[in-house]
Every structure is written in structure tokens, then in C-alpha cells.
């Protein structure tokens, strides 16, 4: 056999690191009772407290932001070590820490690329340690998928900027200490060319956050209103009117590898277990060909996404950057969880109408209701397909009527 053979197993160093993670997790989690809600609602004080405590504990042990430099409070490790820890953590009953995901996944790399050394030293350690929560203020009511159409104005005033406008669908803004914001600094040039990015203090005067209750009854998103909010020019990220490339780099972090290894929720094991218990007529649902074929189809896709994620990790290990083709995972997983949950509800029959807190279907129904969000957040299915078509397959963009027209003439 050739030396250049594929290897799914950990290298000796990696195996060692995995054991280290596993035993640390086992010990660190003796404090927790392991009971978690189906989905974390960070408006519940205990859920938030558990998240902060856990994030801080990880940071103290070097397991928060493992692949970030130690100087900022990171672990100074590799991307593969990060993945090994994530795998082990996902397999454990650790408290949910989703409220830090935007900070760690998007704000951290964006700040690392565009902020000053002083800003990084001041802001990144509390971000990593779970003391500060960050949000991303891009979407607006009038622009969903078309981010370059944001209208929130930024007007220069001496060494400051004055911000006025409205953002929407801002995850966890009600808890956030800081935010990354995309603004319209110049309406007299085409829409992609008049944008500027900043980081802002979410407690600054003039910032008002109003939570949006979602269909599943949880408020993860918010509307955020800006009325004469003063932001020092020192908090600008990137060039004046150069915000589009900052936003693109932030979004790239959101989308690359999105969903591939990180999907929480229904698994094939859950489906098999559920189908063992349910009956169709007199036989277990698991004996029914229609159920079995779907299990195979879903496994093919989920396992394919998982294996594909290993291809991406291999590239990272080799120092290469995985391309946008790996964002297919996000596209596939939202739809699939939606399908699986709907199928299991249907298979359960009338009793699945009861989704009260103590019912058998409560968890399944929550997956089903939250799946719609997965298909929309971080790029709707349709937008993800456009991105794959244009960036991976090189197909032409739609005819654009708005590209060379000054922003102020578009409406």
C-alpha cells in the first residue's frame, strides 16, 4: 500500500489530544446535571448563566477559540484540534453556548483581520472568555438577501460618525455588548461602493433593541434601531466606503463549512430509534420499506456532508482554504432536518398533534418549527444555490439592473 493513503483515524498526536479533551470534559462536566432544553432560550437566566460559566471555564483551560493565538485568550492550537474538541464537546452534555457563536465565528476573525492591535488586545479576550457577547448588524427590513442595499446612514462628524437607521434579524442583539455593523456612508455611488463597516458598543446612547418572537416561541432575533448613535472613527473596520469587502469576509466565515460538522438536532440514530417504537398497522415502522428507503436516502446525504467536511478539514490541515463548495452542507441540512422531523411527525399520526411540553412529540415539533429558520438564516436556500452556481460552477449572474446606478437613484 502507498504511504499517501487516506487516513480517517487520528494521528498519535491527535489521538492524544482527543483523550485529553475527553477527560477534561468529563471532569469539567461533573458540575452540570446534563439536562438541557431541546433548544436553548438565552432569555432564560439559568440558560445564559450556564453558557457564560461554561465558556469561561473552557477559556481558562484553553478550549475556547482553540485555534486563535494565546495572546488574545485563545488556545494557540490548530484548526484540527479545534475540530477534535468540538466533536467531543458535541458528544457531551455540555451547556449550549450558541449565544457566543457570532462572536467567535464571525466577529473574532473579522476583528482579527481589520482591528488595531490595541483593539484586539482589549476586546478579544473578553469575547473568548464569554464575558462579552457580539452580534452582527447587517440585514435590514428592506434588504433581505441583497445586503449591499443597506440604508442605515453613517455621516461623518469630525472624528466621529453619526449612525441612523434600522437593522433586523440580529441574532442575540438583546444580549450583545458589541456589534459589527454595515452602513451606507456614501449614497452617491453604486450600492456596493458606498458602504462602511464599524464595530459599535451596543450600550451606546441611541441604540434600541426590540426582540422578535419567532414562530417557535423563542426570541433569538431582534430589530435594532439607531438614532443619532455616535461612533468614533477609530472603530471603523476597513476603508471608508470599503465596507463591502469587510462584510464579504465576515460572511465567508459564516458560510464556509457552515452546517457541515456543526448541525445539532435530529440524527439518523434518532430516526431509527423512533421508527422502532412507532407502528404502521401491526408492524414496526422500521420494517416498512418506505421508512427504510428514506433512512437510506437521508443517511447518504448526511454522511456525505460529514465526509465532505473531512475533506475540507484535510485542506485546512494542509494550509489550504476550502472553497465555497463546502457551503453545500448548510444548504442540505436545513431542508433535511425539516423533512425528517415532518416525516416522523406524520408517522406518529394524530397523537403528534399534541406538542405540549410533556408530550412525546415536543422535541420533534421544536426541530420541525426551528428548521424553517435553518433554511433562511445565514443565506436562504435560494441564495446559497446562487452562490454555488456563480462562485463554484462559474455560471453567469442574473442580469442586474442596479449595479452601476448611484444608490440614491435606485428607489
Amino acid at each position: 500500500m502507498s504511504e499517501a493513503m487516506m487516513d480517517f483515524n487520528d494521528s498519535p498526536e491527535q489521538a492524544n489530544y482527543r483523550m485529553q479533551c475527553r477527560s477534561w470534559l468529563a471532569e469539567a462536566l461533573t458540575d452540570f446535571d446534563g439536562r438541557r432544553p431541546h433548544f436553548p432560550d438565552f432569555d432564560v437566566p439559568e440558560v445564559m448563566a450556564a453558557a457564560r460559566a461554561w465558556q469561561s471555564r473552557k477559556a481558562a483551560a484553553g478550549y475556547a477559540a482553540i485555534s486563535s493565538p494565546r495572546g488574545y485568550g485563545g488556545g494557540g492550537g490548530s484548526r484540527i484540534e479545534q475540530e477534535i474538541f468540538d466533536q467531543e464537546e458535541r458528544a457531551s452534555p455540555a451547556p449550549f453556548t450558541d449565544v457566543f457563536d457570532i462572536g467567535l465565528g464571525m466577529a473574532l476573525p473579522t476583528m482579527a483581520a481589520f482591528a488595531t492591535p490595541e483593539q484586539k488586545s482589549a476586546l478579544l479576550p473578553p469575547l473568548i472568555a464569554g464575558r462579552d457577547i457580539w452580534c452582527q448588524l447587517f440585514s435590514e427590513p428592506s434588504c433581505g438577501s441583497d445586503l449591499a442595499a443597506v440604508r442605515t446612514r453613517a455621516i461623518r462628524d469630525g472624528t466621529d460618525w453619526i449612525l441612523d437607521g434600522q437593522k433586523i434579524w440580529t441574532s442575540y442583539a438583546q444580549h450583545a455588548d458589541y456589534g459589527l455593523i454595515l452602513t451606507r456612508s456614501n449614497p452617491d455611488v453604486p450600492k456596493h461602493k458606498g458602504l462602511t463597516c464599524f464595530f459599535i458598543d451596543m450600550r451606546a446612547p441611541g441604540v434600541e433593541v426590540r426582540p422578535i418572537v419567532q414562530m417557535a416561541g423563542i426570541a433569538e432575533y431582534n430589530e435594532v434601531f439607531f438614532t443619532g448613535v455616535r461612533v468614533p472613527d477609530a472603530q471603523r473596520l476597513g476603508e471608508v466606503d470599503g465596507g463591502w469587502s469587510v462584510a464579504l469576509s465576515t460572511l465567508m466565515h459564516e458560510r464556509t463549512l457552515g452546517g457541515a460538522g456543526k448541525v445539532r438536532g435530529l440524527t439518523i440514530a434518532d430516526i431509527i430509534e423512533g421508527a422502532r417504537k412507532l407502528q404502521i398497522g401491526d408492524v414496526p415502522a422500521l420494517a416498512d420499506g418506505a421508512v427504510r428507503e428514506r433512512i437510506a436516502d437521508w443517511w447518504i446525504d448526511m454522511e456525505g456532508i460529514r465526509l465532505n467536511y473531512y475533506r475540507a478539514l484535510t485542506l485546512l490541515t494542509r494550509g489550504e482554504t476550502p472553497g465555497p463548495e463546502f457551503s453545500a452542507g448548510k444548504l442540505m441540512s436545513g431542508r433535511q432536518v425539516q423533512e425528517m422531523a415532518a416525516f416522523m411527525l406524520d408517522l406518529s399520526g394524530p397523537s403528534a398533534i399534541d406538542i405540549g411540553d410533556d408530550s412525546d412529540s415536543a422535541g420533534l415539533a421544536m426541530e420541525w418549527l426551528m428548521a424553517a429558520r435553518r433554511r433562511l438564516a445565514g443565506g436562504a436556500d435560494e441564495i446559497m444555490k446562487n452562490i454555488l452556481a456563480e462562485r463554484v460552477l462559474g455560471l453567469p449572474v442574473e442580469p442586474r439592473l442596479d449595479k452601476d446606478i448611484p444608490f440614491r437613484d435606485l428607489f
Partner: protein
Amino acid sequence: MNFELSPEQEMLREMLQRFMTEKCGRDVVRAIVDGQDEWAAELWNAMQQLGLLGIGIDEILGGTGGCLMEVCLVAEALGHGLAPVPFVPTALVSQIIARFGNEHQRERLLPGIIAGGVRTTIAAIDGQFADGTISGTAPIALDGAIADIALLATNTHLVIVPLDGPHVTRTPIGSVDRTRSIARLSLAAAPADALPDAALDWWQDAAAVLSGFEQLGGTERVIAMTRTHVLERRSFGRAIGSYQAVKHRLVDMHIKALIARAHAYHGAWALMTDAPERRLAAAGARVAASEAYRFSAREGLQLHGAMGTSWEHDAHLHLRRAEMLGLVWGGSRIWKERVVVQLEQAHV
């Protein structure tokens, strides 16, 4: 060949649309969703005043006249408006009693139903009927929390049970569809009055067809609201309704609605004429309507973008209603199986 609504039925449909626009606005539905009211009693009264609770019942029996098709059109209009009223179970019960009940049962029950004072539920029960009493549990009784009378189906009997006695316990459940008050019914030797066996064979098919029209109404509403949204919402300088991904998805929704409507009409016709293919036609109506409403509600929500996922938007009310109606008489796997069993017999 006559497979379309008659001009009179078209007029009824238009009248019902106007009625619903007037009497079942957003505030009526939201009052139930947000828990202020248990059901839309005022709407029910207005329906009674229009004679809609006696529709499809012969005038000799105190009804408004008309045929089952007209009952179906009422169900369609209520589905379109997400109406929080127990019309389908109540109409099912009045149709069954008018059709199969003895004179005593008709006289005891129909006047109250037609006058609006008696609301009913109908459900399968895991239990036994013997010696004039029934015991057992019906885990899901549609509109059961507000019903006065239940028709309950054991494996062998369809029986009438008043729900006001001491032998009945009802527990409201946390339903996926918050517009309807669904309950679990537990009966311990509750007095019950049996209907003829033929009714036991008929009720599921009738439930499938009537709910099919309710689902169809919901489907059309979702298509209409999604269409309005994609015409108004702009992205990258164009109405999003001009993008093929959006257009073609709406066409998929439209075709499913078209197919569901054809099956629903067929099911109604088969019930009315007691056609030999009644079971097949009813199963077709149920499967097609469940698929059309669930698909349209899911993809309609998707086409509304993030806004569609908020509590304040009605998209999820349809998603929830579609799921409840898709489950209440049994999921699609069961009903597709009924289709195939009938087809096997037809093609021996």
C-alpha cells in the same frame, strides 16, 4: 360530464369569501392564537344566522337544504380564513345523523346543531362500547375542548356521547395548531347511543373529504399571500417574484392545489352518489389535500424569508394548521396505503 361547480355554488363561494373577510379578520384569529379566547364564538353565531350550520341538511329536518358539496364549500372558506370554529366536526356529525341516524337521534340532535347551541367533535377512540355505555380514551378530539357532543368510533361501533356528564374527563392538549381547541377525552362507562354500522364505514371517508376542502382553502390562502409578498418584495433591484426559483416554486404550489381540488371534487361527488370508488376517491382527496397544504405552507413560509418565521406573521399559523389537519385523521402513510389497497382490488 359535469365536473365543475354550478353557477349557484360559485355564488355561494363568493358570498362565503365576503363573509369571511368581514367576520374572520386577523384580530379574530389572533385572539385565539394569543390565548385571549378559546374559540371564535361570534363567528359561529354569524354562521348560524346565515344558515350555514344547517347547510346540506334537508329542510324537512330543519336544515337549510343544499347538498354535501355546499358543506364542502363552507369548509373551504373556513380553511381559507384559518377560522377557529368547530365546523368540520360539527358538520360531519350532522351529516352522519341526518344520513344514518334514526328518527329519535335526528330529533334530539339536529335542531340544536342547526341552531348553533350544540357543538360536536368526532374522533377515533381506543375503547369498548357495550350495554349502552362506552369506556376508553380518545387521545385527540378535534375541537373537543369546546364540544357538547362527541361521535366516537371504536373498531366496531360509531356512538353518540354527550360530553357533559360525570363519566367524561376532558383534558385540553397543547396542540401544534393553536387556533383550535383540541382535547383528550377519557370516558368511564359514559352513556352512549350507537349508530348503524354503515355509518362506521362512512365517517372516515367523509372526514377525509370535508377536511380536504378545509386544507384546500388553506392552500389557496397561502398561495395568495405568498404571491402578494413576492410581487411586493424586491431584491437586487427586482420583485423577487420575477426570479425563476420563486416563480417555479409558486407553480409547484399551484399545481398541487389544482390536483388537490380535482380530488376534493371527486371525493365529494363519490360521497354524494355513494359511488363504488368512494373509498379510493376519499383517500385521494385526503392525500392530495394534505400534501398540497403542507407543501404550500412550508414553501410559502420559505418564500416569505425571515419575516415568515416570526410569531407575528401568519405563515406559521398555516404551517401549524396544515400539520394538524394532515395528522388528525391519520398521517399520509396510512392514507396512501388505503389508496394502494383500493388500487390493488381494482387491478386484480
